[in-house]
């Protein structure tokens, strides 16, 4: 079947099997490998991306379900001149990562959280990121990073519009 999906501002039509998962579509068809596949069971959140403004676990969405949608992955966050998205900057500033495997999903889920709740408390951050696991247990700095990102205001909860070259 054919799907037409806009990823980071770039629309493309591809022939895919109906059973192709969005995570595999992003990594293998579009070549965007920041989106990690961790548990593959909708538990860990490493594969979180933004679909039409909402965070989703791309291992549990078919590419077919994203036909016509706008998807943002980690690769779509930084500006063309390399300037990081406020959530990316905050993760770096607060050292919100250890091994880094969960980080792309954490960053995307954090953007989704901040879109919904621009100034969350520590508890709201922990609840809001419940669907993302850090096996290094680096949660304290992740919470700090999200609180720091919130200081950037509405921009922290937005994904860039327009084309980002992969």
């Amino acid at each position, binding site marked *: 079947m054919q799907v037409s999906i806009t990823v980071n501002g770039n629309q493309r039509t591809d022939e895919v099997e109906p059973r192709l998962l969005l995570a595999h579509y992003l990594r293998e068809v579009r070549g965007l490998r920041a989106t990690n596949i961790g548990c593959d069971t909708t538990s860990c959140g490493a594969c979180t991306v933004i679909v039409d403004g909402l965070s989703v676990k791309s291992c*549990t969405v078919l590419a077919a*379900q994203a036909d016509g949608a706008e998807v943002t992955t980690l690769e779509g966050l930084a500006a063309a001149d390399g300037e990081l998205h406020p959530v990316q900057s905050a993760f770096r500033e607060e050292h919100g990562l250890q091994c880094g495997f969960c980080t792309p999903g954490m960053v995307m889920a954090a953007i989704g959280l901040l879109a919904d709740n621009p100034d969350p408390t520590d508890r709201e951050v922990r609840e809001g990121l*419940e669907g993302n696991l850090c096996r290094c247990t680096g949660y304290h700095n992740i919470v700090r990073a999200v609180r720091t990102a919130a200081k950037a205001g509405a921009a922290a909860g937005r994904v860039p519009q327009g084309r980002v070259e992969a």
Partner: protein
Amino acid sequence: MIPAPFDYVRAGSVEEALAALAEHGEDAKVLAGGHSLLPLMKLRLATPAVLVDIGGIRDLSYVRVEGDGADAVVAIGAGTRHHELQRNEVARAEVPLLPHVAGRVGDAQVRHRGTIGGTTAHSDPASDLPTALLALGGTVVLQGPGGRREVPVTGFWTGFFETAMSPDELVVELRVPRTGVTGFGYEKFTRRENDWPIVAAAAVAGRVALANMAGTVVRATATEEALAAGASIAEAAELADQGTSPVADMHADADYRRHLARLLTRRALEKATAAA
């Protein structure tokens, strides 16, 4: 993990979905949010030959009040996603138990996809929203080749993953009595904040429903009868596990589940009373 191959049909309307179900019969499964079905398919525990995707039928997403006074019902479209129900102003004012419980399903990413019709049709006894729907009472509206019919929630869930639906029917709406802003309690015991309930109890208007205490969500009828006869909450809650048949798994043995059912019922009833 990759699902077994299947044919994919995108339904643009309820009629198109019903036509596809009529054509493919038991070989077809309906895909809404996909957050119960796709994990089962990835584990090859479900291998439907055809998926009928109703996720794009946006006119199945609504919450509205129908009728007046004591007969008023709140109608919720089957395609309403958990995060939509959680924030819906009509739902919060007219039947606040439902948006509260919708906000306790899974995690944010799951709530962005999962639908109330999907969790109703899936019939997992550990599901949050069916527990709330059973406590509220009301009906499941099904649409099939012969038109629409309403099945009371008390008779809808017939077993583990089994319902009173036929394969050619679709859940199109949930109808619950309008409670208005009233006391309710939803207590769920989990290992993580919003995980699947090991046991959960929903209490509203003198009724109590339990998750994960049998092959389906169940009402705590002995507790309800005791409350109606004037028993205290503590006395009535002690009867909550009567008539249930909890299983043992890695999270809890059956006796512990019975203990949780009594405890969570008491807490849910206390919350419902305190907030009323």
